[in-house]
Every structure is written in C-alpha cells, then in structure tokens.
C-alpha cells in the first residue's frame, strides 16, 4: 500500500537546487497545491484539499488511488523533532488515522492509508516512535511519511523533460525566484517564462498528453515563482501570479481543444489555491484591518496604494463568491467589517475603478444597495470626465488599464526611466461599460445631464484577431479600436446597445468558469470591456 516516490530519471542539478531553494523556504500552504498536482499526475484522484480552511479533520488532502483505496495526507512545514511531534503533530495524526474520511464518495467503512508529509526532515527519535506506534496501536492502519527528499524527487519528476531550454531561460527563472516577495511581481517576465514552459504559441506541439505534462510543469514553476511572495505573506501578488497561470492554461485548453481529462484537475487545484489565498488575505484584513501592515514612516504616501492592491483582490473574491452563490460574499455587508474597508480604493488610473465596478455588480442586487451601486458608477463617470474629459488640464489623465499600480506610483513620483509623454484626454477604456451599466440601472436623467461631455469621449478597447488571445497578456494581432459616440444619442439606442451583448467575443472556457473572471480581470484589467462586463452583469442578475 505504501507508495514510493521514484527518483527522477534526468537530474538537472540547477533545477534541483532551484526546487530545493523554493521547497525549503515554503511552508505547507506553499507546497500544498503542487503536492496535489503531483498526486493527480501520479494517478491519484483528488477528493479534497483543505489545508487553509479552519475545518481539517486531521486530513489536509484526501485522494483515491487507482486501486480504489482512499489516502489521507496531513501536511506540515519544516523539521519535526520530538517536542513538535508530541505537542503538535501526533494529536493531529491520531485524528488522521482514527477518524473516518468525511466525503460523500468515500466509504467510511473502508480503511484509509495515512501519510504525514513534510518539506523538512523527521528526526530519528520521532521515526523510532512512529515505528513503535505502527507496531502497536496503529498496526492496522500504520502511518507512512514523505519528507523533503521524497517531495524533491516528486516535484523534479513534474519538470522532467520540461526544463528551461537554455541558460537565458534559467536566468529568467533564477531572477524570478530570488525576487523580493514583498512587492509587485514583474508580470511581463513571469508571463514570458511560463509561456515558454507551456509552449503557448507552439501549434506544432500537438500531443495532448505532452500538454498535460506542460501544465503540471508550469504549476511547479509558477509555485516556485510565487514562492517569495507566499513566504512574505504577500497574498495579493500570489493570487495574481496563479491567476496568470490559469488564464494561460485556459488559452491552451481553448486553442488546442484539450479535453477535460488533460487539465481539469490541474485547474481545480490552482483555482483552489487562488481562491484560498484570496481568503487568507481577506481573513487578514477582516481580523486586523489594513493598518497593521503599515510599519514604517516610508509607508505614508503609499498607504492608499497598498490598501488598493489588497482590496482589489478581496472585492474580486466577493464577486466570485457572489457568482457561485457562496454565502461568504455577505461578509461584505457585515457592519463590523465594512468600516475596515473605508478608503480602501484609490484612484490612480482606469484600472483602479475595477473594484468599484465589481462591487456594483453585487450591491445592485442587495436590498437597499442599488443606490450605492448607482453612485459608484456615477463617481466613475465624474472622475473620468474630470481627468480625461475635454475640460481636463491634467498632463497625462488617468492612464489606461494597461498600466498597473506600480507604474502609477512611479509616474506620480517621477521615478520612470524615460519621460512619459502620453496624454489620455478624451480617451477611456471603461467608460462604455459604465455607461451601459447606468443604462441598465435606468439612469436616464443622469446620463442626459452628462451626455454633452460624454459625447466628446472616445471609447477605446482592444479586439484580438483571435478570440482565444483574449486570455493572453499581450497579443500581436488585433485592433486597437476607438468608438466615437454620437453627438445626439437616443435613450432607446443606448438601451439597445446595453442589451445587445451576445457573449460570442469571450473565450468559452472563461465563460464556463465565470467565478474565475473577477480574478482574471484583476490580473488583466485591460481585458475589461463591454462584453465581459455585460456577461458578469447578466450572470449576477439571476
């Protein structure tokens, strides 16, 4: 019954060191998604993985192997000495072994195989004690364990044959995993690296089984890249990195028509990671508020931006929960929590409106919340016109959603390498979906008041030549489209436009997993357009 993790066939010393470095700095939350991915890749059928919830039953991961035997895993981080074993680990192992697996698809009467997994070592005296227990009270269902070396072998297996192709790519990986995890990730570099591993652009890579292996390898590398951020407790950046990986997987699925068996389990694991990491962030803010994070006088001017970075992930989480009818979204209305989010959205560019737009989709459905939803949309219009409208005297205006918070901060502090000469007067990417939302919310009078100024604006969007490219960070083929609104517009025309959404411009897998969209937009804010926002509006209308 005991499973041995085989040695990888090809040992790449550089990669081995890189994985070692990552594994040694990760805690159990950090390696759990990858451990699940490894299980799936080795024939286990994953049933659940719940390390970061408060409901454990002593079993962090439960899976069934091909012989239909249930396996339960307790995950730990670091070395286990006798003190830790007796005080912390053994009581949990007693539950792991003694308690039946609570899962509808697993027969409670069937004994399960129990594993203790750690990315550290188990000291000899602990091993002796485990051996004694296995020969004594645990003899019917003994405890097995995997330690650092086993995990290393397993994770290396996942990368077999899918290693960085050359020294240059290795350097990219090394730069990414040795970065300061407290900041904003370099998405462009992460995207470049992962797209090489996933062979995103390669049509010739037709073997679907190979695609499955690519996905597993990309999960390994993404986990390594996210490592420094996870160690720093920088949940927002971790979420964004894993979201980027998922959108690339969706791209491959749609473009190369991968059946579920090649990727769905990986999706579930990575999605679980995105979701649970966002929940950790929410828990942190709901418990301590934002202020605990501000520890130096240097924070002063950056506080609004830091708050924004976190709240944008939490609002994405809430919308995601709202979409799938998970009652957790209601924490948004909890009077003890609401004040903690006061002034958590800063206006620094068009992408900064995203949290408000997500919140609007929820609030409009809450009794008494429609007024707030409408006010938020009106605020966006007013800010857009002030900063980018024809009367604006601002040097740059609100930067388009292609620019992130990091850029906005550098711009406002004059820290950019080259002078930024762009000017976005008259231009907006988000105005069209916001106007359409106000039309749906029947705000004819307000729009009539604003139309004179709105009619001067140009509505921008990027339309990729290939529908699937919507999921990519950047694509070479496509139209930068500007729509000029009519000077004289009829209300009925606006209604018609707001209702004309067909959804055929959105990639099918994105529509299949709508709960992922809020996170996707947080990482790819330049993909927010009328269609995707209308789609969200429609599915949150039910």
């Amino acid at each position, binding site marked *: 019954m005991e499973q041995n993790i085989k040695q990888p066939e090809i040992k790449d010393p550089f990669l081995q060191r890189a994985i070692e470095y990552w594994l040694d700095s990760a805690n159990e939350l950090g390696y759990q998604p990858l451990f699940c991915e490894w299980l799936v890749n080795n024939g286990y059928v994953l049933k659940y993985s719940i390390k970061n919830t408060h409901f454990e039953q002593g079993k962090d991961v439960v899976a069934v192997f091909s012989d239909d035997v249930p396996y339960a895993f307790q995950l730990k981080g670091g070395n286990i000495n006798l003190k830790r074993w007796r005080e912390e680990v053994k009581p949990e192992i007693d539950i792991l072994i003694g308690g039946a697996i609570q899962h509808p698809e697993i027969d409670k009467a069937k004994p399960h195989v129990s594993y203790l997994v750690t990315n550290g070592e188990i000291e000899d005296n602990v091993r002796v004690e485990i051996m004694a227990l296995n020969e004594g009270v645990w003899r019917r269902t003994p405890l097995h364990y995997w330690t650092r070396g086993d995990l290393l072998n397993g994770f290396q297996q996942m990368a077999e044959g899918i290693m960085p192709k050359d020294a240059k790519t290795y350097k990219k990986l090394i730069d990414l995993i040795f970065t300061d995890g407290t900041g904003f990730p370099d998405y462009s570099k992460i995207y470049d690296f992962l797209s090489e591993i996933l062979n995103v652009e390669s049509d010739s890579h037709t073997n679907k089984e190979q695609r499955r292996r690519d996905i597993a390898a990309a999960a390994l590398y993404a986990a390594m890249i996210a490592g420094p951020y996870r160690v720093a407790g920088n949940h927002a950046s971790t979420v964004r990195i894993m979201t980027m990986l998922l959108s690339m997987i969706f791209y491959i699925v749609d473009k190369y028509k991968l059946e579920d068996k090649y990727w769905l389990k990986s999706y579930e694991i990575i999605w679980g990671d995105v979701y649970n990491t966002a929940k950790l962030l929410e828990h942190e803010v709901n418990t301590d508020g934002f202020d605990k994070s501000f520890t130096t006088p240097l924070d002063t001017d950056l506080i609004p931006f830091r708050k924004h970075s976190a709240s944008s992930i939490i609002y994405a989480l809430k919308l995601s929960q709202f979409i799938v009818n998970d009652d957790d979204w209601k924490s948004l209305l909890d009077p003890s929590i609401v004040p903690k989010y006061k002034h958590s959205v800063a206006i620094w560019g068009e992408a900064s409106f995203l949290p408000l737009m997500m919140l609007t989709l929820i609030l409009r459905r809450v009794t008494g919340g429609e007024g707030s939803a409408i006010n938020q949309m009106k605020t966006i219009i007013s800010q857009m016109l002030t900063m980018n409208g*024809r*009367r604006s005297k601002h040097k740059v205006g609100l930067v*388009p959603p*292609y620019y992130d918070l990091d850029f906005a901060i550098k711009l406002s502090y004059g820290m950019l*390498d*080259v*002078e930024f*000469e*762009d*000017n*976005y*007067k008259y*231009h907006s990417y988000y105005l069209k979906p916001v106007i359409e939302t106000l039309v749906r919310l029947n705000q*004819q009078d307000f*729009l*009539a008041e604003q*139309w*004179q100024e709105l*009619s*001067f604006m140009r509505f921008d969007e*990027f*339309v*990729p*030549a290939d529908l699937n490219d919507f999921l990519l960070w*950047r*694509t*070479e*083929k*496509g*139209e*930068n*489209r*500007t*729509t*000029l*609104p*009519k*000077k*004289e*517009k*009829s*209300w*009925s025309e*606006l209604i018609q436009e707001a209702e004309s959404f067909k959804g055929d411009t959105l990639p099918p897998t994105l529509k299949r997993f709508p709960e992922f969209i809020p996170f996707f937009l947080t990482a790819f804010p*330049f993909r927010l357009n009328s269609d995707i926002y209308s789609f969200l509006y429609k599915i949150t209308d039910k």
Partner: protein
Amino acid sequence: MITDFPEAKKEIRKALDSIMRAQVKQNAPMLSLIGSKTLHEGDSMGVIYEDGRHVVDPLQRAESQFSVSREEIVTMKPEDLMAKVSTAAKDIAGQMEGYLFQTIDKSIEESGNTIPGNPELSPEAILIALEKIQIDFEDDDRSKPVMPTIVSGPGAFEKLKEHEAKATKAEKLEFEEKQKAIMDGKFKEHLANLASRKLVD
C-alpha cells in the same frame, strides 16, 4: 577583453534614446502637436465613426539605421555619434510626418475640405482656411479659442511674412476684423455643437 562598463553604457544608451526622441519631435513638428498614446498590443488601429463606418488601418513602421565601422569607433567623438543619431532621427521623423500628411491629405480630400485653386499662403488663404475648420474654445470661453497651427514649408512661410510686411495698417485692421467675425461665427458654431450634444428620448 578589457574591463567594460556596462552600467555606464546603459545610461549612455538611455540618454541617446532621449535625444533621439527629442530630435524626432523637433523634426516632426506636426506630429509633436498631437498627443501621443502608447499601444501595447495589436497590429492595427480602427475607428468606428458616429455614422457607423468602421475604418481599420494597419500600424505603420518607422525605422532608420546607421552603421559605424570599427576604425571609426576608436576615433569617434561624442559629437560624431550625435550627428549619426540626429540623421537617423530626421529620417524617422520624415517617415512619420510623411505618413501623417498622407493620411491628413487623404481625409481632407475625401471630405472636400480643400481650398480651391491651391492658393499660396497668405492672410486671405488663412481666413478661408479658418472658415473651413472647426475651432474649440477652452472652457467654452469666447476669449480662449484653441487656434490651429500653420505647418508650412520655409518658402511659403517667407511669403506669408512678406505679405505681412507689405500690408498697410488698414489692410491689417481689415484682416483682424474679418478674423474676429470668423471667430465669432466659430464660437456660435461651438455653442451650437455643444447644444447638439444631447441625449434624447
């Protein structure tokens, strides 16, 4: 190899890039008047006009190159390098400005907004041109017209200066009065344009 100074070179390159950009702007005066915005992806730009027309144009490439021989490198002075950068900048500016004029010419011809007979640049021609174009007024204030910029060849500009020098006081006054009348009309048009921008049932 002899020890190099890559970081210093990076800074020099940055400075050269800045100079190149400034020179392109200087040599493409028309282009430098237009607000720029960066495109991050795609290979075309499209506009959907008020009447529903959808016009898509591929992005145009503007490029230039210069070469420096190994022998030159050893004796080259900073001003030599600057001269080469400057030539390349002029080349790029010429391509960009040329494409811009082509596009403008095409749309002016399509809209029939040309001055018949192609007269030389003169006060009269300026008044005719003013009549033909739309003029914005900052803060919707009559005293703040956003006046267009004349882009001309050096010869045409000299002739305009000659016209000005030769003009009598009365002719100048007449020009100013005519221009004021046109601008009054333009302001009325501006207000009418504003009034026409509305949401109807």
